[in-house]
């Protein structure tokens, strides 16, 4: 069939049942993305004869003679389409996986539609962005410039652009599967368990193996016997070893039963139906409260201590019980107490790029995995552990990753691909569908959190107790780490002489839960901050004031339940006081012009049915994950005066790459565009624990900063030796050199090292080429992730609630963040907005539903309310003025943190409006309506 793509004629084979998106990608038009494959997300948008369509639901048999335009056809980095330039200038992207579709769609908007703006919610209802919260996308469409070009040596603290921005907006940037392997790639599909708990009694793959195109079918008989955990951490023993690549026991619906490798996805999927399996169905348990009762079916009952499961005989993977003082006595003696139980739901990360891996054998015979991961080194190490491979025989890397939010700190596709590549010797790909993301990728842990809190009449906390039960699902992965983290900063942020924690992370036959932005804190903070709000009401104390009286301040011990616990957690800086003031003052004052609605003036609804309220909540978070987080980085000078940095951490919209460029450029007196970044590859850096716990700036960034400082000294030393003739220009730059020649005016410039005039002659620039003539100049820098500091976020809302329908309308959303030195204001604002957006989704809309028997019933975006443009307000973002002693240039991390205070702040505002306390998320319209009926 002949048709045109971006002006070029294409003569392509189109199979019946194929959609346009598949045909385009098969013909290497990788700029066309696959976010949902169902018409819901818009990432695949293209123009067909100038009409925008979702190419994933456009039947390809209609293509004859058509003209298709993709984002790459709209413009190029050299000649961008005006809308591409706008997205770049406005910083209208984070991970950028939605961007191709956004740009294509927005390119069809008329000037009137843009000038008016009020139709944007409708025009963008078919385009989901999980990262930005849409404000920056709106700015892009309006043509607002939010970025700036930094002068040499002065980029830290400025809103410079993401280095890949122009490539992303023109469709040139590669994501995980956006490339062609030299040899034809095979595809892997998985047969999933139809039962929540069963044992495979027989499995026959002969018929499937005989089918057209099928290369191999794997079953549990082929699986390595090594137990592992899909959750990945610096110390592999932090997570329970309870998982096999293929297990004869199936513990949740959707678990892998068999895997087929075939020439095409279609052949692999068709062959699944030919695998004949018999099951012995086992009793199952779905309610975590029942799962720990005596007599409940045991999910991992047979596992021994080597699996590191706290109590397999009670389905408890982790537990913590501790008390300081006497909570019950203190509560009994308190002037006011509050007690309640709060429940949170499962949330899918909804990263627009699904989990995917392609693997092959490289020319050196090494296994290579290109995967959508936040943690390439941890994946490599665990793959080596499972398959008994030496680490130098495996390379793992990530191209740009289309969103993570914790979901890609998990090994979900890499192991099967490894198995298939090792067996076939071929290139093999395994890509999750969106349905897989909903049904087998670990979502956020649902939690039931009981809180008891007491205070004196003066509002001084006397006791704080938390009783937490979390459903970790059929496998433990992050179920230990999340539990311990969830009760840490949420509780240690408050001073109370009496504290108690009872927390249990419990196996069920539901799908496994996993790491999600905030790593457990958000669920507990929702409960604790709701309880504190209620306490403030009882005591008739302003909720900000109640916080001020009880939060930790520098000098305090950050106690969970052991006031003498030794910890590497310090107050490297403290901005909580400022954050509380900033939000309180903002809410008390008039709204700024850009607040409330994304599209102009915020209407305050009128009518008796509307109830109005305000609410706030706060959150503390450690700036790095505990128990070690390591980064080894390098900075090298290139002959053309640019620098190449090697860093292991991944870029998935978190923006750390931008900051890495800024930090390096600032030290080396150059501009960020002269920094070449090699990243997220086990070949380009010695090691990096990975991009989680918001570590990209404070760990890898700090390591890079140190490396750049070392390189600077080495460059100056060599320039001096060259110009003055004193010293050895070829001296090993790794050895610290004295720069004390009294040369105060030595400076690094983009052209080279600027030496002043002196006894040796006139001043001059020693170019990079000249410096490198005496040998390479490369420095390394490392950081071990300790000690750690704390960061703070305070959120405030004012809302209107429709008592008739349960609708919540956000009139103002204000967040103050204590991020230390702000290295890139626009990006940081984007992180706060994105975290807030995701949390508003959690608070009001999103809910993965299960049928009570382990079956997920929300299997597509259309049944799951990922916030759209029409669902979100402008969030006013304010920064505390602090400088952290520990972070690079005084910066702290700020990726996970903004998510945490949002849901309770919104719940507190709703409570203020309607007079009834919500205890359950999401506060969907039907739930709030029902609360109002009681």
């Amino acid at each position, binding site marked *: 069939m002949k048709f045109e793509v971006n002006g070029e004629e294409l003569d392509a084979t189109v*199979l*019946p*049942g*194929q*959609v346009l998106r*598949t045909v385009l990608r098969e013909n290497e038009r990788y700029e066309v993305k696959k976010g949902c*494959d*169902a*018409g*819901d997300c*818009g990432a695949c*948008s293209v123009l067909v004869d100038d*009409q*925008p*369509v*979702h190419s*994933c*639901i*456009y*039947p390809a*048999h*209609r293509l004859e003679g058509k003209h298709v335009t993709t984002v790459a056809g709209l413009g190029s980095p050299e000649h961008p389409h005006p809308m591409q330039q706008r997205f770049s200038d406005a910083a209208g992207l984070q991970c950028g996986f939605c961007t191709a579709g956004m740009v294509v*769609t927005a390119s069809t908007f008329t000037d009137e539609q843009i000038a008016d703006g*009020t139709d*944007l*919610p*409708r*025009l963008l*209802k*078919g385009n989901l962005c999980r990262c930005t919260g849409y404000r920056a996308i709106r700015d892009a469409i309006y043509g607002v410039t939010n970025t700036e070009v930094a002068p040499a040596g002065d980029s830290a603290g400025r809103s410079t652009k993401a280095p890949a921005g122009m490539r992303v907006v023109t469709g040139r940037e590669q994501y995980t599967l956006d490339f062609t392997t030299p040899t034809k790639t095979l595809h892997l599909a998985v047969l999933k368990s139809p039962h929540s708990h069963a044992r495979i009694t027989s499995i026959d793959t002969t018929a499937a193996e005989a089918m057209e195109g099928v290369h191999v079918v794997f079953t549990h008989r082929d699986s390595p016997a090594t137990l592992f955990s899909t959750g990945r951490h610096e110390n592999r023993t932090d997570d329970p070893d309870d998982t096999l690549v293929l297990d004869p026991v199936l513990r949740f619906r959707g678990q892998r039963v068999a895997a087929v490798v075939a020439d095409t*996805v*279609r052949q692999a*999927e068709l062959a699944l139906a030919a695998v004949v399996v018999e099951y012995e169905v086992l009793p199952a348990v779905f309610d975590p409260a029942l799962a720990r009762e005596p007599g409940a079916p045991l999910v991992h009952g047979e596992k021994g201590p080597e699996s590191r499961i706290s109590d397999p005989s009670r389905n408890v993977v982790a537990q913590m019980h501790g008390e300081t003082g006497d909570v019950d006595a203190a509560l009994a003696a308190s002037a006011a107490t509050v007690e309640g139980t709060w429940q949170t739901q499962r949330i899918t990360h909804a990263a627009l790029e699904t989990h995917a891996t392609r693997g092959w054998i490289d020319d050196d015979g090494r296994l290579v995995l290109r995967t959508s991961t936040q943690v390439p080194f941890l994946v490599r190490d665990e793959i080596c552990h499972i398959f008994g491979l030496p680490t130098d025989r495996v390379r793992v890397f990530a191209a740009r990753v289309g969103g993570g939010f914790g979901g890609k700190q998990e090994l979900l596709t890499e192991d099967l691909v490894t198995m298939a590549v090792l067996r076939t010797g071929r290139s093999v790909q395994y890509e999750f569908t969106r349905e897989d993301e909903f049904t087998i990728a670990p979502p956020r842990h649902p939690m039931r959190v009981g809180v008891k809190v007491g205070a004196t009449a003066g509002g001084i906390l006397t006791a704080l107790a938390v009783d937490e039960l979390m459903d970790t699902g059929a496998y433990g992965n992050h179920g230990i780490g999340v539990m311990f983290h969830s009760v840490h900063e949420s509780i240690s942020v408050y001073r109370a002489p009496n504290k108690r924690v009872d927390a249990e992370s419990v196996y069920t036959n539901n799908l496994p839960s996993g790491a999600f932005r905030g790593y457990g804190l958000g669920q507990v903070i929702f409960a604790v901050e709701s309880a504190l709000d209620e306490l403030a009401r009882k005591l008739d104390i302003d909720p900000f004031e109640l916080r001020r009286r009880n939060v930790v301040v520098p000098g305090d011990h950050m106690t969970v339940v052991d006031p003498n616990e030794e910890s590497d957690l310090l107050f490297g800086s403290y901005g909580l006081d400022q954050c509380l003031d900033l939000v309180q003052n903002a809410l008390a004052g008039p709204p700024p012009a850009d607040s409330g*609605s994304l*599209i102009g*003036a915020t*209407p305050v*609804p009128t*009518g008796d049915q509307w109830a109005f309220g305000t609410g706030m909540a706060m959150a503390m978070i450690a700036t790095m994950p505990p128990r070690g987080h390591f980064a080894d980085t390098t900075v090298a000078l290139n002959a053309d005066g640019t620098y190449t940095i090697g860093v292991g951490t991944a870029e998935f919209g978190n923006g750390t790459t931008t900051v890495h460029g800024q930090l390096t450029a600032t030290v080396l007196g150059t501009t960020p565009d002269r920094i070449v970044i090699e990243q997220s590859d086990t070949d380009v850096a010695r090691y990096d624990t990975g991009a989680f716990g918001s570590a990209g700036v404070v760990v890898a960034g700090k390591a890079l900063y140190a490396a750049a400082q070392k390189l600077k000294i080495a460059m100056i030393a060599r320039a001096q030796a060259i110009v003055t003739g004193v010293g050895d220009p070829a001296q090993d730059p790794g050895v610290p050199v004295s720069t004390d020649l009294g040369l105060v005016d030595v400076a690094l410039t983009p052209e080279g090292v600027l030496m002043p005039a002196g006894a040796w002659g006139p001043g001059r620039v020693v170019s990079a080429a000249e410096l490198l003539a005496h040998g390479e100049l490369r420095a390394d820098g490392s950081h071990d992730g300790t000690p750690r500091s704390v960061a703070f976020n305070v959120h405030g809302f004012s809302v209107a609630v*429709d008592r*008739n*329908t*349960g609708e919540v*309308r956000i009139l103002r959303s204000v967040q103050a963040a204590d991020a230390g030195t702000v290295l890139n204001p626009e990006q940081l604002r984007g992180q706060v907005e994105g975290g807030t957006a995701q949390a508003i989704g959690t608070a009001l*809309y999103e*809910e993965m*539903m299960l049928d009570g028997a382990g079956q997920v*019933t929300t299997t*597509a975006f*259309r*049944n*799951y309310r990922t916030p*759209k443009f*029409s*669902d979100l307000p402008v969030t006013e973002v304010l920064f505390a003025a602090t400088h952290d002693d520990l972070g690079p240039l005084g910066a702290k991390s700020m990726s996970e943190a903004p998510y945490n205070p949002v849901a309770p702040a919104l719940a507190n505002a709703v409570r203020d409006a309607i007079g009834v306390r919500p205890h359950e998320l999401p506060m969907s*319209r*039907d*739930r709030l*309506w*029902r609360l109002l009926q009681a």
Partner: protein
Amino acid sequence: MDLIDVHEIRVARTRDDIVLGESVRPLGGGTWLFSEPQPPEHTGFVDLTALGWTPIETTADHLVVSATCTIRELTDFALDPEWPAQRLFRQCAESLLMSFKIWNLATVGGNVATALPAGAMTSLLAGLGARAVIWGAEGRERGILVSDLVTGVRAIDLLLDEVIRSFEIPLTSLRSRTAFRRISLSNLGRSAAVVIGRVDATGECVITVTAATPRPVQLRFDSVPEAGELSDALSGYSDWYSDPHGAPDWRRAVSMRFAEEIRAELSAGTDSSTDTDSSTGTDTHTGSDA
């Protein structure tokens, strides 16, 4: 998404090409068919979109909308000042979760045939008392009211060899006064309740509830009813739909409230579509009035 079990797509050029059966199903715009995995037994499709059916035609008594008319074509159809009810076209189209890009492909017939409670073309056509013209094999033809054609969630009163040819909207309906309300759990989300009220020249008042119920529920009154009469009629209904887009008790409550609001609006005799909140782009109470 690719439909892996499909071996053949036949593009029909004439009526004779429409040969259907257990395994060969009609293909409209394809926007629903390609958006979800389909039963493996559906191995072939007959594409109806190249039959050249005129999207919209006016006859003496009807506005005839062909099944292959796209939602885009329906909303682009010029507004006729004689037809106040025509604004429902846009209100209903906006009630679909799908984006304007999908409007370019999705057909009116495909939406009705998909038979989702949130099928806003079903809401529209049922609300306007439209009749579907059904074509069967060997030149058979029959008519059925759209409100009867959709019999449940994903269930439609069509034989295996039948397709929807067109919808006949009585011009008397288009001349009616109408009122419209909808809600979903998020602003522009999948409809949880769509209620349409219509009063025609004879004074007859029809209230049509969709999205909140598995199939269209229609209440007919000789004239705009009293509040009690309406709520009695609706409270007798009990089969409120439950899915991730709203709990049944809430759907019942908002539907009853909307019905009452519509009743009040229609009995006030004004022909307004109060647009309480279009400035936020939300449409929880009323569709934006195009």
